[in-house]
């Protein structure tokens, strides 16, 4: 196994990437083959992610499974440097799970199936890359690799919706998502270059995160630099994390995206942003982070309340979940901004928990949309009659979303509140109130669309397919398992939090 550790992280990136490359050579007109091949690749990735997570030694902590491949030597110094810490490990696991789920659920993609899975697997490879790479150049590379396929995935396979007073085409959703995220990337790239310049002024030009962190500890990066660089990272990555007021790409993106893409989008892609704020912003520019955190927690709180209140008056199921994601990512941002061990651990756990929960919700909404061809909660009624299992799974995801104890969301949100209570008490109280508002919109949605006397026009609906049921059941089990016994995740996360906060 020691040999495996040498290459495990490389494999994690390479398997889906190679899968994407190989899939290009599949015959064009056999969608089922493409789907099965993608399942095969995603299943290997899933197993790898589980093994990597289990191989991470939480007793030792720190960065593990390190392996470096030189790419461009002196004087530029870019290396493909792999390494996993306690924050990346649970997210690798999350990506393994959600990627497999998204591929399975994409059985319904029948148009240009092969191309769809090529892009989906490339996206998955990019996400794995961001979580396991320790070099800013490649982090940026993988970040873009994760983001760019979204444009095509939404633009080609998405759906346009007419909301009466306004229209949301898939092209609009794809374009807006792309432009906003690219704008964020530019900010990130400026920040990365600023640090690179600082390191070269110190005589050792490098993109290596660990080296840059060490330089920062030695005082090579001035406080002033850190103060202006941190906002670039916070905003740049923040856009992807759904930071208010740069969140509007997210709900519109969901409305347009096909189900599998929505699952990855809300399940893991938004986590990249939060992960970047911790891994790059906090660790490399801690002095800047300390100065700007009050602003970030303020915006995070706005996210929570604003997202929840907006979700309250949405009728489209995907808009409700989209705004709910904005709200829940607010807890992640709040937890990060506390700079408190419990709050930060809560933020990371919330990333995991929200990833599973929201992917489950989108999977179930996708199943409904597939059959009813509508997502308007005012028109859907009494779905439980014909789609009992779908309703059951959606309800459990909804309960996790409103922070019901016994499900994973509660533990995470509770920890965020705990951290925030120590540091920013009034905002923490607002966060708790946000959780209560969540209960209102989730229960309204359940009462309106899922329960109720039923409408004869929906009597033809059929319940979720075996694949959809399988994915749903697995996700529900994870939600319950983490909610009841969070220790296996938390003891890994704790080590990550320890190393992240060691720089302060």
């Amino acid at each position: 196994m020691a040999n495996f550790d040498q290459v495990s992280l490389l494999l994690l990136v390479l398997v889906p990437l190679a899968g994407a490359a190989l899939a290009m050579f599949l015959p064009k007109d056999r969608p089922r083959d493409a789907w099965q091949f993608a399942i095969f690749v995603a299943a290997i990735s899933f197993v790898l992610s589980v093994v990597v997570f289990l191989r991470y030694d939480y007793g030792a902590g720190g960065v593990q499974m390190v392996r470096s491949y030189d790419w461009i030597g002196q004087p530029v110094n870019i290396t493909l440097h792999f390494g996993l810490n306690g924050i990346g490990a649970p997210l690798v696991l999350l990506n393994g799970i959600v990627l497999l789920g998204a591929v399975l659920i994409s059985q319904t993609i029948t148009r240009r199936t092969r191309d769809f899975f090529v892009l989906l697997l490339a996206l998955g490879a990019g996400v794995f890359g961001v979580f396991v790479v320790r070099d800013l150049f490649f982090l940026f590379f993988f970040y873009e690799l994760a983001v760019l396929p979204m444009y095509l995935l939404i633009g080609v396979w998405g759906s346009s919706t007419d909301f009466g007073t306004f229209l949301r085409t898939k092209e609009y959703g794809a374009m807006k998502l792309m432009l906003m995220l690219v704008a964020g990337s530019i900010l990130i790239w400026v920040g990365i270059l600023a640090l690179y310049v600082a390191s070269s002024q110190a005589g050792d030009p490098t993109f290596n995160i660990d080296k840059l962190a060490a330089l920062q500890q030695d005082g090579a990066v001035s406080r002033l630099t850190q103060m202006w660089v941190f906002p670039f990272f916070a905003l740049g990555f923040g856009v992807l994390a759904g930071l208010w007021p740069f969140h509007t790409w997210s709900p519109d993106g969901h409305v347009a995206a096909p189900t599998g893409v929505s699952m990855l989008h809300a399940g893991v892609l938004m986590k990249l942003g939060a992960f970047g704020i911790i891994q790059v912003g906090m660790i490399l520019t801690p002095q800047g982070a300390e100065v700007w955190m009050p602003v970030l927690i303020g915006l995070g709180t706005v996210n929570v309340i604003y997202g929840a209140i907006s979700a309250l008056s949405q009728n489209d199921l995907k808009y409700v979940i989209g705004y709910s994601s904005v709200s829940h990512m607010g807890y992640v941002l709040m937890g990060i901004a506390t700079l408190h061990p419990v709050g930060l651990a809560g933020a990371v756990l919330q990333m995991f928990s929200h990833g599973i929960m929201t992917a489950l919700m989108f999977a179930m909404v996708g199943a409904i949309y597939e059959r009813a061809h509508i997502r308007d909660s005012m028109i859907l009624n009494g779905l439980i009659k014909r789609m009992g299992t779908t309703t059951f799974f959606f309800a459990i995801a909804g309960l996790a979303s409103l922070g019901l104890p016994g499900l994973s969301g509660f533990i995470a949100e509770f920890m965020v509140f705990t951290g925030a209570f120590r540091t920013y008490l009034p905002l923490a109280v607002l966060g708790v109130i946000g959780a209560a508002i969540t209960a209102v919109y989730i229960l309204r949605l359940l009462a309106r669309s899922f329960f109720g006397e039923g409408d004869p026009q929906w009597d033809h609906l059929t319940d979720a397919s075996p694949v959809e049921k399988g994915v749903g059941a697995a996700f529900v089990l994870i939600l319950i398992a983490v909610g009841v016994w969070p220790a296996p995740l938390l003891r890994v996360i704790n080590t990550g939090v320890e190393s992240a906060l060691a720089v302060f």
Partner: protein
Amino acid sequence: MPLAFLIPVFSFAACPLIILFQRWLPLRGAPLAILAIGGGFVVWALTTVSFLGAAPENPACAVSGITGALTCHFSTSWFEAGLPGVAATVDQAIHLDWGIIIDPLTVVLLGLITFVALGVQLYSLEYMKGDPRFGWYFAWQALFVAAMLTLALADNFLLLYIAWELVGLCSYLLIGFWFENPGPREAAKKAFVVTRIGDVGLLVGILLLWVNVGSFSMTDAFAAAASGELGSGVTTAAAILLLLGAMGKSAQFPFHVWLPDAMEGPTPVSALIHAATMVIAGVYLVARAYPIFAASPEAMMIVAIVGLITALGAATIALVSTDLKRILAYSTVSHLGLMMLSLGAFGWTAAVFHLMAHGFAKALLFLGAGSVMHGVGAHGDVDIRRVGGLRRAMPVTAVVFSIGALSLGGIPILSGFWSKDEILIAVEHNLPVIFIVLTMLTAFLSALYMARAMFVVFFGAEGEDSHHAHESPLLMTGVMSVLAVLAVGFGWIAFNWPGAFGGIGGFVFYDHAEKFHFNYVLGALSIILAVGAFVLAWLVYVRRSVSHEPWRVRFAGVLRVVERRYYVDEAYQWSIDRVVLTVSAALAFFDRAVVNDVAVNGPADVVRKAGVALRLHVTGHVYTYALAVALGVIGLAIFWWLRSV
């Protein structure tokens, strides 16, 4: 005794088993739920025996310095978060345990819950027969009971909160059990959301205690509060926040609105909610966290005032309601108010005693109401003006219901009389005189509405809906009969019986053991009021020799206000429709029109329009460029010429 954790675990396990395998199990798995709670009851009995016996030698047990009661703890590590390795900084990590506490309060509460739940589930076998979701019903029942048992056993605030929320969830599922109809659906949502508003207070209170104590352990928090280390401001704030949670669950004004609507669920569920689960959680929380309340006179006064307002207000509404279950529901609200009042008046033992006595009687009354519905074939509402004289068709139900009503009405030697008497003593002793006057009034009203319900439904003239009434099956009447025995005799545990048992005050007490005592003046007054109320109701509703019509006319205005339940529901509805939803719609519009269409699409439009405008300059014709070059040259020439001049 360490195995007490099994009491809820049986029922927790039963829930998923029934959900998954109901299709193949006999009776859709209902026996599994009953076995689980029965097993819980047996473990409770064994625990009680060992607690009463060998407890002092147990290393896990000690006499608490704060409550004065023997208290046992058992726990095992659950999870740690933050920096658990850094021992020096307590505030950098949280440590959570699965921990249970066993003390007299827990013991009596577990007894009430397991016993009533067992009875209700047996009764439900008959009552729910033929329901298409029979299995689901028992699965949710099992989860409900399990959550409530965990709540009573939890020895840290987080575990308590978890159980607390699960209780809320199960009430949502059971109240909305017949979700095809709008009534149950709305009632379920209302119950969850209203209690959740209170829960915000509870969670904030728990976190506030953590920030100041550094632990979620109740023992630590109580020690800090009792020793004054917490500071009076924080203590009062924490007490009030915990009280908010308690007010939500225990349906105290102004959070009482969900409970009367909760009768939309199957009637046995109401029996469970009103007697043994859910609503007693709030009273239990205040009783459990009493060291925090007792350390703050302001908080105690607030508890008493909230209790009194609730008790009196709900009693008046119960008196004018015409739906049998609604009368019982407001009666519960009123009695919960009395318990809170008692807690606020330092009548800790009296509150717990009344909790028990009321629990048995109210379970009996709701099961009786269910039996009436079963007998007359009603679904949903039972309008007491349309049923009457049921004592001939349903003799057993009539007898047991009357016993419950007499007990709750405070007729001497029945349970309710003794527990109410203890509350009166506490209120009279510790609070200003206005409190005892209003409490007496509440007691009178309480007897009056119970008498009204009992006489109208079972005695007097036959109603239009009662022609085809028939007695309920043996299983239902059997359960009710057992509860009736308790409604009669449970109160006698108050006395100082000869032998080791020193009355309930010698076992369940706060700070110091209390002997049974009887205030003859108060006792006589309360007997006169209670008996007087029953006689009055008999004259009005059975003999019809006294008419209340002139009174109804003279106080028509007041009556309307009370009949509309003081417009509290309307106020809620208005604030949700007009305030919350308006704000939400405005914000959603803002998000689309301002944040998206202006701030996001705006720059995009500017870029596009700039492109359109600039594009005109790129004509592709050579003469245009030549002209530009010529103009540039001329311009530069003029510039140089001007400089040289």
